[in-house]
């Protein structure tokens, strides 16, 4: 048999004169039959391989960040078997309130989250001896990073194993689609560890950085947990500057602080400065102005600020510095840090355009104030 002729391009695509070659029939028929009956399984195998690799990566991230946390605790003179305590903490869960009747759910969520925060704070203090509040806040943030990575790993693994167990290909598709976003978040969390340990400002700290700079020469007064405010003047207007108390790794309690300050000082305008997630294609460090309470989180602080502003009929303006999720929780990039002066200039022009002499303005720097004092 002439094999050169058998596998020639002409024969393969049927343009040759002889169309009755049985080997050519098999070459075409077998893959068709294979893909018709086993196509989904083949795709499942390929997809499973990709997801498996991602699960391994998530597991590695979780283990590495946990090791870094334990090493950091060792350096901070840890007490007892911290590894066991940390393992126990990773399994803590929060049961959100029933939302079938959503009326009055916000105070319940707030209470639940505060209880969790207070408990975590106490747990952190029991992990190491004589640690400063600054060190405790860093450990608390590191613990949150490890917990988040642990949760991501467990959820992805659960969805994958369920789909595999039931041989259910459609169940694996949403996971495959979500995986790049999950991995982006996981990589951001892993990248946050070095900045947290070194006490360096993160991208989310741009709001506190701008407001902290404006507070530098003023007397600072504590208002709410881990939150401070200062009074200043600008073109015959009174400024109330509010931010979380730096350089600790905390976001403070802006909701409570705004409520107290509005009740006491009755400002005519509220300006909120925060980091905002950019859309794909947008440039990092772009500044955007808008309306409404610029504050992330689960929504309790935003709810409180919106309620207070509405009750006292105070307009709320927002300035947002765009960045990716990774930039928001890792070391602040040059592009973002370089925008601080421009943001301050925009705050000043917003004040002069929207208020008159003698009026007062509350300026809130929202975000994690790690490495940013005032």
């Amino acid at each position, binding site marked *: 048999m002439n094999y050169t002729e058998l596998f020639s391009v002409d024969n393969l695509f049927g343009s040759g004169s002889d169309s009755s070659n049985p080997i050519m029939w098999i070459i075409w028929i077998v893959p068709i039959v294979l893909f018709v009956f086993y196509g989904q399984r083949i795709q499942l195998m390929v997809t499973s391989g990709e997801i498996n690799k991602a699960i391994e990566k998530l597991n590695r991230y979780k283990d590495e960040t946990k090791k870094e946390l334990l090493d950091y605790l060792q350096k901070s003179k840890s007490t007892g078997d911290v590894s066991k305590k940390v393992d126990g903490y990773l399994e803590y869960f929060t049961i959100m309130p029933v939302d079938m009747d959503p009326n009055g759910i916000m105070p319940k969520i707030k209470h639940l989250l505060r209880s969790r925060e207070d408990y975590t704070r106490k747990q952190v203090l029991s992990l190491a001896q004589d640690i400063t509040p600054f060190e405790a806040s860093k450990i608390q943030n590191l613990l949150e990073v490890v917990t988040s990575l642990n949760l991501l790993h467990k959820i992805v693994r659960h969805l994958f194993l369920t789909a595999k167990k039931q041989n259910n290909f459609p169940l694996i598709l949403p996971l495959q689609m979500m995986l790049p976003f999950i991995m982006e978040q996981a990589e951001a969390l892993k990248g946050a560890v070095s900045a947290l340990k070194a006490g360096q400002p993160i991208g989310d700290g741009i709001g506190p950085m701008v407001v902290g700079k404006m507070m530098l020469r003023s007397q600072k007064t504590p208002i709410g947990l881990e939150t401070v405010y200062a009074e200043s003047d600008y073109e015959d207007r009174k400024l109330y500057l509010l931010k979380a108390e730096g350089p600790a790794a905390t976001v403070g309690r802006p909701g409570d602080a705004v409520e107290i300050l509005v009740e006491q000082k009755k400002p005519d305008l509220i300006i909120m400065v925060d980091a905002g997630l950019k859309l794909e294609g947008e440039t990092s460090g772009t500044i955007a102005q808008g309306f409404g309470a610029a504050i992330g989180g689960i929504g309790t602080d935003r709810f409180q600020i919106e309620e207070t502003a509405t009750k006292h009929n105070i307009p709320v303006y927002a300035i947002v510095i765009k960045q990716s999720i990774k930039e928001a929780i890792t070391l*602040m*990039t040059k592009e973002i840090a370089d925008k601080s002066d421009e943001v301050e200039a925009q705050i000043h022009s917003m004040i002069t355009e929207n208020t008159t002499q003698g009026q007062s303005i509350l300026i809130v720097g929202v975000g994690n104030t790690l490495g940013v004092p005032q």
Partner: protein
Amino acid sequence: MIFSKKEKPLVAHTIEKCLQCKKENKRPFKEGDTLFTQGQVCTSCKDQTSILKIFGQAIE
């Protein structure tokens, strides 16, 4: 992945600004550097500097 490009690691830098001559100096970040606190002595006028910015820049 086909479209993913390897990200370069960020190296932390500190920018100090002289309170007298306003000259800015960029140097690698040192542990203990905190924004708005005292920096090193100014290289040109020997006056005190203040830490203006701390940021990460990718290594080229």
